[in-house]
Structures are given as structure tokens and as C-alpha cells.
């Protein structure tokens, strides 16, 4: 069977070599390929473009589900013909549109905007922590203040201790704590408020496989400035000050996983709020 990809990540194209890559995990909407230390999602979930990902047509995802299995299937990369080949399935991305997941930093971005106007409509959404997004952002949940204090701290021991309560915490394949921190990392991409120590300790925990592979992959992509399309569109809309478009991007983020989208949104709002607070102090 041969399927043609709709879109392929430039990061995937640049990274992949002529090697065998095993299927790491399978889901309803596609599968993860383990390649060069990264997980490359091949499939289609709400047409989202993911770092290192390959977007297939929805009807093709249904077709390949029976052919691909975790631990048993592996793909050989054919660089010349731009295909992934396994017995029974060829994924041809030679004609696919190429996209990049890299966030282009714009130092002119400012966090000054009415955050209630942008995020208000999601404040009652319940996160995987049990609290609503609004409750988390408003600091009504005790842990939030503690982690906020770590953002620019230099005390690595304390940061590590606190991060251990968040990394890998909660239900889901990407536990809620990891999704929340992903939101923080993206907010930091936009407004640069995290100190080096915080990121360094996060890298250490990710490196030591303190959480699931899928979360670790998420962290490393984020630290490489790679994010899915909905994030990039959110940032772009922020730059253009298009509130409606920000809302649309947020709504797409909310669709991630079971509670993942809401956990991420909580982190994003918390991070931007923090950046705004710091900005006001200047």
C-alpha cells in the first residue's frame, strides 16, 4: 500500500538519514516513529502540524492502522525518493508541502494585552489537575505560586525539587504537569522570562527520562524552538493583535488530547501573565 503525505516537516527532512526507524507508539489518529532521538508523528489529528511530523490525509490514516504496529513495524528511510518504506506500506512525501515548526522569535513582542479578553472564554475549562484554567491562573491553587517563584530563581536544588512535582505529574500519556510546562515554555518563547537555571533543570529531568517519552519529546522540541502550528498561529495573531485569531488558535489547542489542551492553555496563560507582571514592574 502506498500513501502520499499532505505535508512534511522540514525538521524531519533535515534530520532523517538512510536508516531504519521503528514505530514507537500507535494511536487512533496515527503513529509515532522513533527517529534520531525524536518522535515523529505520522498521521492526522484535526490537521495539526507537529514538529518532525508528517501529515497524512484522514482517509489514509484509517487505511494504515491495520498495517502499522508498535514494536513490530519499522520504516526504512529512502532519502532519494523521499519515502518511508516498510513491508506492506510506503509513505511517500516527495510531493508533500513542506512546513516548518520553528518559532521565529520577534523581540518586539510585548505581553501587554488584555489577557482576560484573550483567555477569558476558557477560564471555566477543567484541567487534568481538577482545577479550572481560571483557578490555576488566578493562583487559587497553592502550587502555582511556588513554581512561579522558580521561573527566575538561581537555586537549582529548589528548582529541581519543585519541578519534580510537576514533571510527569497527572493523568494521560502526556501527564498534565508536562502539558502545563509546555504552555509555560511557549509563553517564554514569546516573551523570554524564564531563567537559565529553570530551563537547565528541566532539561536534566527530561534527559533522565523522569517522564514519558512523549512528554520528553515535547520538551526537547520546545527547547529547540519547535512547536505545533496552532502555537505558531497564536503567536502570530498576538503579534498582529488579532484577538479573534488568537481565540481560534486557542480553541484548536483545547482539542489536544483529553485534558492536554486545557493543561497547555493553563500553562500558556500563567506564563504570559507572569511576563506581563514583570513587564509592568519595569
Amino acid at each position, binding site marked *: 500500500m502506498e500513501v502520499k503525505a499532505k505535508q512534511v516537516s522540514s525538521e524531519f527532512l533535515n534530520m532523517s538519514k538512510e536508516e531504519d526507524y521503528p514505530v514507537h507508539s500507535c494511536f487512533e489518529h496515527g503513529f509515532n516513529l522513533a527517529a534520531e532521538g525524536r518522535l515523529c508523528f505520522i498521521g492526522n489529528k484535526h490537521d495539526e502540524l507537529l514538529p518532525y511530523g508528517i501529515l497524512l490525509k484522514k482517509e489514509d490514516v484509517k487505511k494504515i*492502522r491495520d498495517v502499522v504496529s508498535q514494536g513490530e513495524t519499522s520504516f526504512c528511510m529512502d532519502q532519494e525518493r523521499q519515502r518511508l518504506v516498510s513491508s506492506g506500506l510506503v509513505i511517500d512525501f516527495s*510531493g508533500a*508541502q513542506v512546513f516548518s515548526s520553528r518559532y521565529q522569535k520577534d523581540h518586539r513582542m510585548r505581553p501587554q494585552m488584555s489577557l482576560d479578553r484573550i483567555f477569558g472564554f476558557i477560564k471555566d475549562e477543567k484541567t487534568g*489537575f481538577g482545577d479550572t484554567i481560571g483557578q490555576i491562573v488566578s493562583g487559587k491553587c497553592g502550587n502555582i505560586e511556588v513554581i512561579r517563584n522558580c521561573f527566575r530563581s538561581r537555586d537549582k536544588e529548589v528548582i529541581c525539587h519543585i519541578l519534580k512535582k510537576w514533571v510527569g505529574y497527572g493523568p494521560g500519556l502526556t501527564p498534565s504537569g508536562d502539558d502545563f510546562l509546555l504552555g509555560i515554555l511557549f509563553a517564554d518563547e514569546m516573551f523570554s522570562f524564564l531563567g537559565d537555571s529553570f530551563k537547565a533543570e528541566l532539561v536534566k529531568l527530561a534527559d533522565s527520562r523522569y517522564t514519558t517519552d512523549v512528554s520528553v519529546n515535547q520538551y526537547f522540541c520546545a527547547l529547540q524552538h519547535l512547536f505545533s502550528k496552532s502555537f505558531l498561529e497564536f503567536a502570530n495573531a498576538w503579534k498582529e493583535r488579532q484577538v479573534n485569531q488568537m481565540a*481560534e488558535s486557542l480553541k484548536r489547542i483545547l482539542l489536544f488530547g483529553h485534558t492536554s489542551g486545557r493543561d497547555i492553555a493553563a500553562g500558556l496563560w500563567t506564563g504570559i501573565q507572569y511576563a506581563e507582571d514583570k513587564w509592568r514592574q519595569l
Partner: protein
Amino acid sequence: MIKTIIKKGSYQDSVVLMLLTNKISAMEGVSKVSIMMATPANKDIFKASGLDTPELLAAGANDMAIVADVEEEALADQILAETEEFLKNQASKGGSKEADSSVHNWEQAINKLPGANLAVISIPGVYAAAEADRALDEGLNVFMFSDNVTIEDEMALKKKAHEKGLLVMGPDCGTGIIQSVPVAFTNHVAPGRIGIVGASGTGIQELTTIIDRLGEGVTNAIGTGGRDLSQAVGGITMLDAINAMEDEKSTEVVIVISKPPAKEVRDVIVERLRNYKKPVVTLFLGEKPEIHEENFYHAYTLDEAARIAVKLVRGEKVIKDTFVPAVEGAYKKEEMKTIKAYYSGGTLAGEAAMMIRDTLSMGVGLGKKEGFMLNVDGHIVVDLGDDVYTQGKPHPMIDPAKRCECMRDAVDDPSTAVILFDIVLGYGSHEDMAKALLPCIQELKEKAEKEKRRVYFVTTVCGTGKDYQGYDYQKKLMEDAGVLVCESNKQAVQTALALIGCEYEEAEKEIVPLGQTKAKEYEVSETVKRLISEKPSIINIGLKSFSEVLKKFDCEVVQFDWAPPAGGNMELIKVLGYLRSQYTDQIAEANEAVIAKIVAASPVLLDVVPAKSVIKEFEGRKVLLHAGPPIRWENMTSPMQGSCVGAVLFEKWASSEAEAREMLEAGEITFIPCHHVNAVGPMGGITSANMPVFVVENITDGNRAYCTMNEGIGKVLRFGAYSQEVVDRLNWMRDVLGPVLGKAIRTFEDGISLSPLIAKAIAMGDEFHQRNIAASLVFLKELAPVITRLEMDEKERYDVIKFLSDTDQFFLNIMMATAKAVMDGARTIQEGTVVTAMCRNGENFGIRISGMGDEWFTAPVNTPQGLYFTGYDQEDASPDMGDSAITETFGVGGMAMIAAPAVTRFVGAGGYEDALNTSNEMMEIVLDRNPNFAIPTWNFQGICLGIDARKVVEKGITPVINTGIAHKEAGVGQIGAGTVHPPVECFEKAVLAYAKKLGYE
């Protein structure tokens, strides 16, 4: 005992983990289970719950940990087997037949169930309002299980529903019964003569189940959503439902219940009910009425409301409840013992709190505080279904764990005398909650006994004998364990109070004459009447489990596997909603008129003449026409610029490439889109004054369209070549081919009628974009006899006929002019959303729609995907260009992929099945079929007719265009063929602009 199962390296997405948790929780013998990835942080959570085991601690972050508290060793294997089965089913879900019978959009849903009168919506809250709005536009009543809908949206929906004579039940409506069909989380209740309208989910469950067990029944129980009686919403749904119940034949008595309503709304409801033609019982939770009125009874508890209704239906006298708790060994009041109540149903918790507060004369208000309904002097009433307690865990109606934990804490408190709880049966609840709670209750009873304390367990089972969990079975299990099982929550609370030495008294209420009010007429729409008088016909949008229950009750139901429309873009969803709700008929009428013109068109090939003789824009200046929407020289692709150079040389405006480029860069040439002068051009589309063009007239509308002739293959102007060979060929076409064809065509008195020719060729396997060979041959067949008899040079005659027979794609350009003539005739109607042009210039894709006239809606082009000739690949491809997408606009080309199975492989589209799927998919975005052009391989169905921009936006399906792929460098020529889709942004912009034209803000 605690059992651990570790699934190493098992990656399941969060929804699957949650569903698996629910499934294992429901297994017999499992009292507690937690399923999470075994990350260090989660191990702490397991530890806190007492579920840390050596196997768990040894597991890694990528291992799925299932830790269960089970009765028997053997259960571990059973859990493992269930888990494997469940995960296997998840993996094969996509291919199942059942999945295929689902629909994926509103059109499919309505087509499958045209008589549907109810939409049940359980999708993420941010989208629920838009889908509910759509359902109302389709004339459906709405049951909104979804929560997180804003109050503003709720108000708008309910006002709209009321104006349209429809009902919106919800949002956050968990329970409903319509003509005995349970909707969402409901009990299986006998049908009967009592109707209920309620702003309370478990309140409805308690009422219906008591009524059933008392031997009567409920045919309709309409949930209104918890905010319906707020000041903002004004009780819209409640009033409409009350009005409908008044006329409903099977209903003799109506119960109206609510949590505390806004005063003004309450007064309106009460005023209405004073004029009610049937006996009615009200219950506004928290109020303690002291009287009844004639035919208008006021209850304090759910139990009272149910009993009164039953008495009324039986024509019996309404008297106070005579229930006396049978309690032996009760504590004395002075011993100051306490009640700890842990509920899964919010209304039941509220009722318990109210009764305890009132009986013990506590001076506190009702309402939740930090998760407690009541927390005074050691008495606790908790709603465990509250958000505070459901920390990513299953609801207490399906998971006993939290309740057991609370009960353990309660027994540790020496003041506790009574532990009060509910067991809610029905669809959506735990399979066997009594059994699930049993071990904990037994353990705690034993503990209390050892400590020589009397701790009573009191419960009520909210269910019926028809509920699949079995009411009698659940009751017996509890009774055998020494739990006091009461017939209702009120009786359970009354029993609990008696056990701590406090007497709950229900006062006899006097029945006074009904207060006089003005009589009024109340209208009920036929649709709402029909809703509650017949079994509903349902489109279920969201949770599949709801469909499964509905099918069990022989309800007509379509499962709509929902994904956000318009790619989840809320602005566009609103725009589509605006057009649909305000202008559906107007747009439908306009679109019908447009496609009627397409069908009625009569294109005729009249002549071949120099372009300058029919396009006046060439007069007196240097003009080049180009393909696509307007573009500047500097933004043109290399092939298009190459074509310009070739045209300049052909027109002798310059004698060398350098000179030509200098002229072009200096802006000495005016560029006009072909489309703006009634023309179309293939690939670069460059057309100059002296190039011969086909003249096609649409006789029906009297308009004409023009297109240059096909130059053949190889190095040709349209792909950007401009060598002497190219110019020489253009000269030949100007001097020989054009005039000869013109002369030949003019011998046909009325021109060559093109529709029959197209109909013939489509039946011979042409799709008219990538494959025109049949049409080209038919055209040659028409002209060859005439050409042979023309007075002309023999060599030239031979060259012309040879050229026509060698150029398989010759008819493409005639087809383009034909499609242009037809679409331009149709777009004289300047309303509607029919796409009237699609074209590309290598930079942008542009479309026009009927309602926006000449305005272009553009977005960056995509690059075609397909098969490449040897030695070329995607890297070499030019971005998409050409006016040839006018063929798809008309309904052929990629829109008729199935007509040309022969080309499907060539354009990389796969085999016959793929071509069929593509063509069927294209039908999703068009209005109808054109009966003039039947496709044999499509079961002789007509080609697609009228691409509707709204459908493209809503469904995210863009037209497919078959196209040649040019090399990105000028002059190399065609390097492949494939398909390309327009960017959906073009259609989004067009729809938005049209909505604004119609007043959208």
C-alpha cells in the same frame, strides 16, 4: 488486596486511559483502581492513595500502571485480560462497520435521517453553542449535554429556539426522558401519566424512580439546564416545556422542579402555573411551603413531590407522608451525634443538607462552600460529583473510591453516628455500585463494632427494577450487609435524623383556593408538541454511548462523529451560522438560479480570430494578458516571465531576450488578467494581440469567451519557452493554423455546438483537463472533412491536420473557453455563493463567487503533487499557475476524476477506487449534478454542478484540480502531472466578504 499490572512501553492516549479506568472500575470485585503512566510524580499520587506496590515502584515513566484493590487474587488475570481486549478493540475501532455507518457532517446526518427532530449534543463546550445553533437552523430541538457554554450563548440559543418554536434542553443537561426514551444519563422508567419539567438532573432521576416504584410512570421528563431559571435566561425552556405538557395527551399531572430560581422568573413560572389546565406540583429546592393551593401543590422534598403526583393521578386525597423510620437503638439527641453524608447526586445532596439544616434549626444558607453542601457542628453533606472532588478521576456515580475514602474518615470521627449515601442506577452509572461499596462498608462496620461503637449506614437506591443494574438486587446486597435502605432520599435523611435522636416532621398542609390571575392563551409550536408526543428521531453529536442506549429503545438515531467545522475557526463558524440563519432561502434561490444558467448554457464555437479583433484592450498600447488574478511582472514566476519574453518577441516589440526583459522590467507593458477581458489562458496564460484565439459564444446568455490555441507539447510558450522555435510556431499558428481553423469553423452555419461534443467525449473517458484526447479526436472528425475541401496550399493543409492529430490536448483550450463562457453567463446573477472562477498566477490562487461579482479572493498557491517525468521531482516544480481551473469550476477536470480512470495513475491519484472516492468527495461541496454530461463510470450520474463556497469552508474540502506541472525555470516545459487544491483561505475570504455584504458585522 492490591494488585498491580504493568504494561511496559504501553502508549495510550488520555481518552483511552480514562475509558479503561471506567471499564476496570465497573468490574465485579474491584473496589478501587487507578491507571496512570508510572512517572515518579505519579508514583507519589499512587502512594498517597495507598496504591504503591513494589511492581509500581519498579516501573518506568513509559509504563502504564494499573493498580487495583481487588477481592481475589484471580481478578488480576481478569483485569489483564479485560485490558488487553479493550486495547485491542481500540486499535481496530477505525475499521469497524459501525464506525463506517456514522456520519461526519450535517448534510450527511440530515440525508440519513430527514425526519430527525432532536439533536443530542455532547461535544466540547466551546463548539457546542455553534452546533446547537446549527441544529436549530435545521429545525431540530436540542438536548445539550455539553457544559462550559456561556450564559450569553445560552440566552441567544433559547431565544432563537423560542422564536422558531423549538426547545433547547440544557446546557449541562444530563437527564431527560422523551416518550419513554431515556436520553443521556437516565433511568429506565415505566411510561405513565406524570410529566416532569426540571432544572435538576438527579432531581429528575429521584422523582422518576420513586414514581416508577410507586406503580405509576413518567412518559416525558424535560431537563432545562441548571441556569434556565436565572434572571438572564428567564425560564424560556421551562415555560415552553410547561406549555407543551399542558396539551400532551398522556400527561395528566405535571411536576416542576428547580434549584433556587431568580425571584422574577419564579414569579412568572408561578403565575403561568396558576392558569394551568392540569394539576401541577412544584418544588423549588430550599423553599419550605406551608400550604397547597387547589390543583397547585407545593412540595418541600422530591419524595413529597412524587407522592403528591401519584395521588393526583390516582384521584386520591393528598395527605402528608406517614413514613416513620424504623430505628432501633437510636442515639439520643443529647449525645450530639453527627451525620456524615456523601452523595454522587448534587440535588440529592442539596435536599439532604436542606432537611438537616431545617430540622436542626441551623442558621446557615444553602449552597456549596469549599465542596461542602453543609459543614456545621460536625454534620457534613458533600456532593462528591462537584469539580473539587473529580480531579481527573471518574465521577462518583461510576467510581466508588472517593466515597470509600470519605466513609473511612467519617468512621474515624467518634461523633459520627450515621453515614448517609446514595446509589444512583441507570444508564451512565456504575454497573454494580452496591457490590463495589460493600467491602468498604463491611470493613467499617467491623471496625466500629470492635471499637464498640454504633455506626449506622443508611442509603437510598435511586433506580428502578428495569435499570440494568437491578434495583432489587442492589437493595438486597445493601440490606444483607446491614445497611438501612430507604425508599427515597427524603426517607433516608429522615432515618438518619431519627438515628441521632432528631425528629423530622412533615406538617400537614392546608389546601387553599387558587389565587386569581388573568386567564391567558399560551401557544405551543407543533414541533415541540411533536417532540413530546412521539418517539424522537435523533441526530447524536458526540458520545457514541448515547446512541447505543437510544438504539436499545428502538429509537431512530444517526451517530454524528463530530469534528469542528471550518477547521474550528469560530469566526467562520459564526459567519456560516449567520448566512444560514438569516439568508438560507435567499442564497438557495440565488444559487439555484446560477446553476440553472450553467445547465441551460449553450456554448458554440464560432471562429478563430486574432485576439486584437475581439479584445479591445489591446488597442493602441502594448498589452499582455496573463493567467490568474492580477499580478505584477516582478512577482511572476520564471516560466510566466519567460512566456512574456516570448510574447514580446512574437509581437516584435523587441528583437532579443535582453531587450524584451528590459522593456518588461521598465513597465512598458500593461498586464491584464485574461479573466478581465472575457478570456482564459493555460499555464502562464500569456496572450498578445496577434495570437489567434477561439471564440466561443454562450448562445443562451449572448456572451463570448476567448482562449489561445494549444501549442502542443515540448518547448512551448505556455511553459515559459521563448526560443526561436517557439516564436516560429506562434507565427505559424497566427498565419496558418488560426486562419485555416477559422475558415473551417465559419462553414458551420451556426458554429460548432460544443455541449454534444463534450457529452460524447466524457463518455469516452475524457475529463477535459489532463485528458482531452477523445474530444480532440471528435473535434478533428468534425473539421477534417471541411479542411480537406478548403482552397489552400496542400502542405499547409497537411501540416494543420497533422498538428491537430498530434496534439492530444488540443481540445483543452476550447474547453477552457467553453467553461469561461458558461460561467460568465451564469455570474450575471450577482448573488449567492457559487464559485464562478478559479485561477492561478504562480503566486496566488484566486476565486470569484457569484454574490461578489468581479472581486477576487486570493491566497498563496500550493504546489501540485503528483508524478514526475524521469529526472524531475518536487524540487523542480513551479508553483501552480493557469486559468485551466475554469474547467473544474465548470465541473470537469479533477471534479470529474472518475470520468477518466486512465489518467488517475498518471496524475498520481491512485486507482479507480481513489478516483471514485475523490469524485464522491467533491459532491460534498457542490449543489447538484449537471444532467447534460453523464459519466458512464459514475453510474451515468451527471458531473458536479455549482461549487458552493460555504460548503468548502464548512467541511474543509477544497476542489481537486488536475494539472500539469511546469518546471520552475522558464523554457524547460512540463515535468509532470498531478493534482493541486486551492488554499481554503480563498473560500473563507469570499464567504466572509459575502456575509459582510449581507450585513454581517
